[in-house]
């Protein structure tokens, strides 16, 4: 089962998928198994890691923190009834919109707000 296959790996490997992407790319070129490399190439030619590293480097700590305190964000980050108001509504999609350059790409996420971890 795909489910078992994915869950059976060590939790430390389960995580930080995006950040570890470039590291794994390096591994691909230096010797991970050929079939996995072929499958990765077959799945998509896109490589988002370079853009991500650029965003990480340009980001300024603290900018956009107000966003973390919005009701919309708190509801989205909730596991069941995110704001605790008992209405049971949990939006699965959060869309942040604005003009180019307002900082949408650089928003940060507060660790204590993740899926009901308040």
């Amino acid at each position: 089962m795909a489910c078992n296959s994915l869950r059976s790996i060590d939790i430390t490997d389960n995580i930080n998928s995006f950040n570890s992407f470039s590291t794994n790319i390096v591994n691909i070129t230096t010797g991970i198994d050929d079939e996995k490399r072929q499958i990765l190439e077959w799945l998509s030619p896109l490589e988002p890691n370079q853009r991500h590293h650029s965003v990480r480097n340009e980001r300024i700590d603290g900018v956009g923190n107000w966003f973390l305190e919005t009701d919309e964000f708190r509801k989205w980050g909730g596991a069941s009834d995110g704001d605790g108001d008992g209405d049971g509504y949990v939006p699965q999609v959060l869309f942040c919109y604005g003009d180019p350059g307002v900082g949408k790409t650089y928003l940060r996420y507060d660790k204590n707000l993740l899926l009901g971890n308040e």
Partner: protein
Amino acid sequence: MIDHLCDQSSERDIAVVGLYCDFLSQHEQSTTNMLGVILKQFVNVGGVSEHVKQAFETARKGFGGRCLRLPDMLELVKTTVASWPQVFICIDALDEALPKHMLDLLRSLHGIVQGSPNTRIFLTGRAIVLQEIKEIFFTRAVIVPISPTKEDIKKFLVRQLGSDTEPDAMDDSLRADILRVIPERISEMQVGKSCVFPIKSGPLTNYVA
């Protein structure tokens, strides 16, 4: 956003995947390729699951080694996402994708969240895609307008001033003026709905009266 989600995922069994839409890569960023790169991140971290391997083997036997069609790719992503307790999918700059690809991507994401209640999707883009978001996700989506606060702008300016390549051209008075005037001006522009926060480096003095 992705970084903080990733930091958190170290404490629990959470997958964080994402992509950045880009005007310059519009044609390469087909919906299938965009979903493919999401799946690629799962494979990269979690290894090749049986359903992905099976699809690959089937495709390889086809004429010339076939690529996946969108419905097949979507099914693979759905199956993979459903196998994780929690998944965050972050997609930046939706409006930079070709309209057709963007619409297909949103519809695909809708299909993914329908089958996986613990999946969360974080999207950014310009207001021009607002209507599509509302129509496709309806009550599943919350929408937040983003604009920088004065404090955000000040933090940005402090960093820009700190990396000034010509520090001799700056003095305390000019620095104070920059930190006072630019946040005010940009805030006024926001009220007029015409603000562009100067994310990229530039001549800060242009913003001062």
